[in-house]
C-alpha cells in the first residue's frame, strides 16, 4: 500500500514546503552575501596601512556620514570596513530584499498565482498558513545570518582578530531582526490586501526610503527624527559589531516585527480571498 511515507518529509507541511521551494535560490542569496563579505575581509590587509588614504577621506566626512561612517578612521578598522560594506550598506539591503520577497510570496504571491485557493481548501486554519510561512521565512533568515557569522569567525584572523564574538553574534542577530521586520511587513500588507504588486511596492519602497533617510539624517539635522522610523537606526546606532547587543534597540525591531505578524494574521483571517 503506498502511504504518505513515500512523500519526502519537507513536503509534509507548509513550513517545510516553503523552505523546499527556496532550495534553488537560497545558494545564490547566501553565496552573494558571503562573497561580498569575503571580498571585504580580504581587502582589509591592503587598507590598514594607508594613512594617506585616511587623510584623504577625512575631507569627505559629510558624505561618509550618509553611509553611517562616524569618522574616517572607522573606514579602515575591521568593524568600520565591514559595517560600510555589509551591515550599514548593501548587505543589509540584500537581507531586507530577501525577507520582502519571501514575505510577499507567502500570502499575496500565493493569491496572485491562484494557488491559495487549493491551500485554503485543506483542513488547516488560515492562521496556521500564515504562521508556517512566516516561520519558514524566519528560519531562512537565521540560516543566512548564521552563515555570515561563520564567515566572520573564519575570517577574523585576516582582520587581525579584531572582531569580538559578541560583536559578530550581535551584528547577525540584528541583521536577522531587520530582515524579520521587513519580511513581517510584507506578510502583513499581503495579509491585509492580498495584492502582490502593492505588497512588493510598499515594502520595497519602505526599504529604500528607510535606508535613504537613515543616512541623510546623519548630515541634515532637520531630518533627524526620521531615523527613528527606520529599522536601520535601531539596528546600527549602537554599532553592534563593535559593541555587542543593544538589547533595547533590538527589542524594538522584534516587537514591531511581531506586531506586523499579528496584523498579517488578523488581516488574512478576516477577509475574502479572491483568486
Amino acid at each position: 500500500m503506498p502511504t504518505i511515507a513515500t512523500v519526502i518529509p519537507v513536503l509534509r507541511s507548509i513550513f517545510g514546503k516553503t523552505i523546499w521551494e527556496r532550495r534553488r535560490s537560497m545558494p545564490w542569496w547566501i553565496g552573494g552575501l558571503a562573497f561580498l563579505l569575503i571580498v571585504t575581509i580580504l581587502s582589509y590587509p591592503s587598507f590598514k596601512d594607508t594613512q594617506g588614504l585616511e587623510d584623504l577621506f577625512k575631507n569627505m566626512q559629510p558624505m561618509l556620514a550618509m553611509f553611517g561612517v562616524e569618522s574616517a578612521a572607522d573606514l579602515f578598522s575591521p568593524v568600520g570596513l565591514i559595517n560600510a560594506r555589509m551591515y550599514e550598506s548593501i548587505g543589509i539591503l540584500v537581507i531586507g530584499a530577501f525577507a520582502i520577497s519571501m514575505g510577499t510570496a507567502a500570502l499575496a504571491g500565493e493569491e496572485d498565482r491562484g494557488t491559495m485557493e487549493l491551500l485554503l481548501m485543506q483542513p488547516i486554519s488560515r492562521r496556521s498558513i500564515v504562521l508556517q510561512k512566516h516561520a519558514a521565512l524566519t528560519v531562512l533568515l537565521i540560516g543566512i545570518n548564521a552563515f555570515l557569522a561563520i564567515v566572520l569567525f573564519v575570517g577574523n584572523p585576516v582582520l587581525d582578530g579584531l572582531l569580538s564574538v559578541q560583536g559578530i553574534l550581535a551584528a547577525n542577530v540584528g541583521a536577522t531582526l531587520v530582515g524579520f521586520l521587513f519580511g513581517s511587513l510584507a506578510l502583513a500588507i499581503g495579509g491585509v490586501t492580498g495584492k502582490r504588486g502593492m505588497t512588493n511596492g510598499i515594502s520595497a519602497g519602505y526599504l529604500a526610503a528607510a535606508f535613504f533617510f537613515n543616512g541623510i539624517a546623519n548630515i541634515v539635522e532637520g531630518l533627524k527624527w526620521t531615523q527613528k522610523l527606520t529599522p536601520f537606526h535601531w539596528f546600527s546606532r549602537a554599532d553592534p559589531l563593535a559593541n555587542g547587543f543593544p538589547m533595547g534597540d533590538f527589542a524594538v525591531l522584534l516587537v514591531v516585527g511581531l506586531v506586523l505578524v499579528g496584523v498579517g494574521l488578523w488581516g488574512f483571517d478576516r477577509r475574502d480571498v479572491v483568486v
Partner: protein
Amino acid sequence: MPAVIEIKNLTKFYGTVRGVEDVDLTVYQGEIFGFLGPNGAGKSTTLRVLVDMLRPTSGSVTVFGLDSRVDSIAIHRRIGYLPGELAMYDRMTARQMLGFFASIRGLEDLSEMHKLAERFDLDLDRPFRSYSSGNRQKVGLVQAFMATPELVILDEPSSALDPLMQQEFYALLDEVKEAGRTVFLSSHVLPEVERVADRVAIIRRGRLVATEHVADLKARARRSLDVTFEEAVPVEQFAGLSSVAEVHPLPDGRSLGFVVVGTMDELVKALAQHRVRNVSSSNGNLEDVFLEFYADDSDGDTGVA
C-alpha cells in the same frame, strides 16, 4: 436523506458588485446536484462561500450541519474541492504536489491517489507547468477525489477533459453516488449536467431561477421537430396549437420546423391529418430548457463569477 449542504438566503456582495442574492439551496446526501448558469451568474461565488474562501454578506451556509465559517476546518476534512480555474505549483511534479496536499490533509493512504492517476492515465512525474490543460485538470480531479471525501464540490469539472476522459469522469461520479457520497458541481455545459445530475439549480444574475429534478426539466423542455410532408402544407394549419411555440417553413418547401413545449400529443394528432414522410427530432436537452430561462437574457451577464 439528510441534507449535506444547506444554503439559506445567501447574499454576497463584493463591495457594491453583486455576487449572489438571496440564494436558497439544499443538497441531500447521495445525490449529484448540478448548478447551472452562464459565466458571471454567481456559481463560483456560491461554491467559494461554501468552502469559506468568501464570507457571506448575509444568510447562512451549513455543510454537514456545520457552519461554513466557524467550522471550516472540520468541513474541509470531509470534502474534496476542484477550483474553477485550477492553479497549482508550476515547478512541482504532480506526485510532489499531491503528496503535499495529502500530507497537510492528514491522509495516510495514497492508494486511491494512484488508482485515480492510473484511471485517468496521468503521468505523475512531470512538473505541473509541462502538462496540457487536460492533464492539469486530471491532477485537480485526483486531488479532489483522493481522500474519498463525503462531499465533492466541483467547479466546471470537465471543461478541459477530452471526450474519453469525460466519460471516465462521469463513470467516477456514478460510483461516488453509488457509494452514497454527494456531488455538487457547477457547469455551463448543459448536456453534462443532464448526463450526471439528479437535480439542478439554475442561477442567473446572482439569483436562483429554478431548482428542479432533471427529469422534470426535460419534460418541460422545448423540443425541436422537423417534419417532412409528401406535399407542401401551409404553416397556418398549426398556428393555433397551444403546445407549438414556433413553426416555420424549411427551405425545401415540403418541410416545417416546429418548437414544441411540453406534450407532443396535440401536434402528433394534427400531423396525422397529413401524409408525413419523415419526422426528425433533436432530443430535449437542457440546452433548450436553458434557452427558455434565458430567452430575454441571451447575451449573458455582467456580474462577478
